[in-house]
């Protein structure tokens, strides 16, 4: 999806953005960010940061403002990600919006079987769904956690599924540096070697900040591997205000900005020019119960302001998705998802993780909600298209043809455009009551179930060179053997 006509929504005035920027540089200079990673700390110290290695819980790094601004300036304003099928290449940045499915849930849910632990079969199903729908541009990463596969080797099964069941761009594993290296090697098999892969980046990897103000070791190990392989990185502070940042939105935006810019600075010091995305995952806690809350008005405002900050720094922006705290794909699920989708698209977000399938505060991937979210994605894409004001758009001949009190169903202008004039719902029911009742009185959830089952039935694997497939299989088998042997020795 690209080149929308509708303008982007500036929630804060420019002086507001400047205030956040100034405060951010002060936080980076005076309070600093902790990095639980010796090599990262060495690099930052050499670049001129002030380092306290004995700080608790991890070495604390204070950034001179000049360094931050100089380094983030090295990151590309937009970049292309290359898919196995060139038709699925995507641009991150500018006016482009790339949508990816839900990421991370240990559980799945559908109408037939209810909520349960996700398996590799579920994982493969969600990759197939992501491949099937044109609204999704990136097949995702942890579309759900395949709990039935051993922890130490499941990243190989996941990457194998992403590379073989889909020919779209995808996301790398960030559980460890070793896992990240496996992902790079597997992608290199498909993309013609590590050097070629570096020139045609294929996977985007999600580096979360353990907010407040802490980068952990595993994430940083992965960041090093991907930055050196020149694969794009998504630096995202994980913030639920009230728990992981102040209850004030202004302060939360400052903290998020400081964390994101610190991570991006590190990526550019490791490998200047590495493609990065400025990430935002900023919602709030429910302060009465302490639980995370999604689709809140505050998170909507924060999303719009976060996108403005990314624009100020000329960096691609990640945020939003179909976020909700609801346990089932019900009314709450969809109004909270809508409350997040609106600002996501009004902000011109460049990468939307969790665009389809997110449920239960990210603890469940829902088959039905996946379809419901696709409906929202489709509507948002039409909304972003703008309003045509050319001759056909203004439809003067229709006025000439149809007089006062007439109707337009048979007008020549109508006959030229009626099939694609308006958005046709994927899921929404617009029949009258009697017809709806006669057709089984299905709720949205029931209709969504029929749709995802149809998509899975009709899924066709994208073609793959037999030699490449064999090399992938061989790599996965060999690494499983090595890892299992190492585990047994432990």
């Amino acid at each position: 999806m690209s080149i929308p006509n509708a303008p982007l929504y500036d929630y804060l005035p420019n002086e507001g953005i400047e205030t956040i920027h100034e405060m951010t540089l002060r936080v980076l200079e005076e309070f600093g960010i902790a990095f639980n990673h010796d090599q990262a700390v060495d690099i930052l110290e050499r670049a001129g940061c002030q380092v306290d290695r004995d700080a608790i819980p991890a070495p604390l790094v204070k950034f001179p403002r000049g360094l931050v601004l100089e380094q983030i300036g090295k990151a590309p304003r937009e970049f292309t990600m290359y898919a196995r099928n060139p038709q699925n290449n995507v641009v991150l940045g500018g006016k482009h919006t790339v949508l990816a499915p839900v990421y991370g849930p240990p559980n799945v849910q559908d109408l037939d079987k209810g909520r349960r632990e996700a398996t590799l079969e579920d994982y493969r199903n969600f990759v197939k769904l992501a491949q099937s729908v044109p609204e999704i541009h990136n097949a995702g990463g942890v579309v759900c956690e395949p709990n039935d596969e051993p922890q130490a080797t499941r990243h190989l099964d996941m990457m194998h599924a992403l590379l073989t069941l889909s020919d779209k761009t995808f996301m790398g594993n960030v559980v460890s540096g070793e896992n990240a290296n496996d992902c790079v090697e597997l992608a290199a098999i498909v993309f013609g070697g590590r050097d070629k892969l570096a020139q045609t980046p294929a996977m985007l990897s999600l580096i979360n900040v353990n907010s407040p103000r802490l980068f952990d070791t595993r994430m940083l190990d992965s960041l090093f591997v991907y930055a050196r392989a020149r694969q794009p990185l998504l630096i995202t502070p994980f913030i639920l205000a009230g728990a992981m940042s102040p209850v004030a939105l202004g302060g939360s935006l400052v903290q998020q900005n400081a964390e994101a810019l610190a991570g991006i600075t590190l990526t550019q010091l490791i490998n200047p020019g590495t493609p990065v995305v400025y990430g935002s995952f900023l919602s709030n806690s429910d302060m009465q119960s302490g639980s995370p809350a999604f689709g809140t008005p505050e998170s909507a405002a924060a999303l719009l302001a976060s996108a403005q900050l990314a624009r100020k720094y000329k960096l691609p922006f990640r945020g939003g998705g179909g976020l909700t705290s609801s346990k089932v794909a019900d009314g709450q699920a969809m109004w909270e998802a809508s409350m997040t989708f609106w600002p996501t698209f009004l902000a011109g977000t460049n990468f939307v993780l969790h665009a389809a399938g997110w449920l239960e505060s990210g603890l469940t991937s829902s088959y039905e909600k996946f379809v419901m979210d696709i409906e929202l994605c489709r509507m948002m894409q039409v909304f972003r298209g703008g309003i045509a004001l050319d001759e056909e758009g203004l439809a003067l001949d229709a006025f000439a043809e149809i007089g006062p009190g007439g109707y337009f169903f048979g007008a020549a202008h109508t006959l030229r455009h009626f099939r694609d004039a308006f958005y046709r719902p994927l899921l929404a029911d617009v029949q009258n009551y009697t017809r709806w009742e006669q057709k089984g009185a299905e709720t949205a959830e029931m209709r969504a179930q029929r749709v995802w089952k149809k998509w899975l039935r009709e899924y066709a694997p994208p073609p793959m060179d037999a030699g490449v497939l064999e090399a992938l299989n061989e790599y996965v088998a060999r690494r499983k053997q090595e890892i299992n042997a190492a585990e047994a020795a432990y």
Partner: protein
Amino acid sequence: MTPDEILQQMYDNTVLGKVADVTNLTKEGLALEMDPLDMLYGGENKELGGRGLLPALQEVGRRFEVGDFFVPEMLMSAKAMQGALTLLRPLLAAKGEKTVGKIVMGTVKGDVHDIGKNLCNIMMEGAGFEVIDLGVNVSPEKFVKAVQDNQPDVVGFSAFLTTTMPMIKVNIEQLKKAGLRDKVKVMAGGAPVTAHYAEISGTDGYAPDASATARLAKQFVGSDGAVPTGALVDAIAAVENMMSVVEPT
């Protein structure tokens, strides 16, 4: 201040979550040689209104249930209680009150998330448990050593990531290898951890939230054969009631 005034002030300031004030009042009461049990229960003169620590926590729990109080307010009340108990615990023990129990807590290796675990710690300390917090990214070896050195009644493993949940089982295997598994009760929790997952990992129990953690710990200590009774157990019950409505964090 008279002892009655101190008891009233303890109640008021615990409800309001004024940690330093409650600690100071406790010290002042001890200087006047007041009975620690009176400070816990509020003393004899019930007609004087809310007095003492436990009735204060009951009031906090009531206010939380009707939606007047939020999590941060409840946390501060528990912290105020925790501060007072730190001073009162040795005196209560000297009076023959049974200590409630000792708990080793930590976030498993590879995981640095600790907000949920810290909430559990505060609630359990407020309830009179002695909590030894090993922090985050705790290796199996460190858990084993802490269990050896401290001989706790319970050890609690916290995991926030699907990728670190398997460390719960690894930790238990290491406890087995060290011959410690039958000497300590094991509980586990964290956002992605379910009762089923805790069970197949080999724990003795699972707690979905901070209040359930305190409740579970109490069950464990009770099931040891030596069912604890007395003032500190009442303290647990008070915190437990106060927290009973809190959602998983």
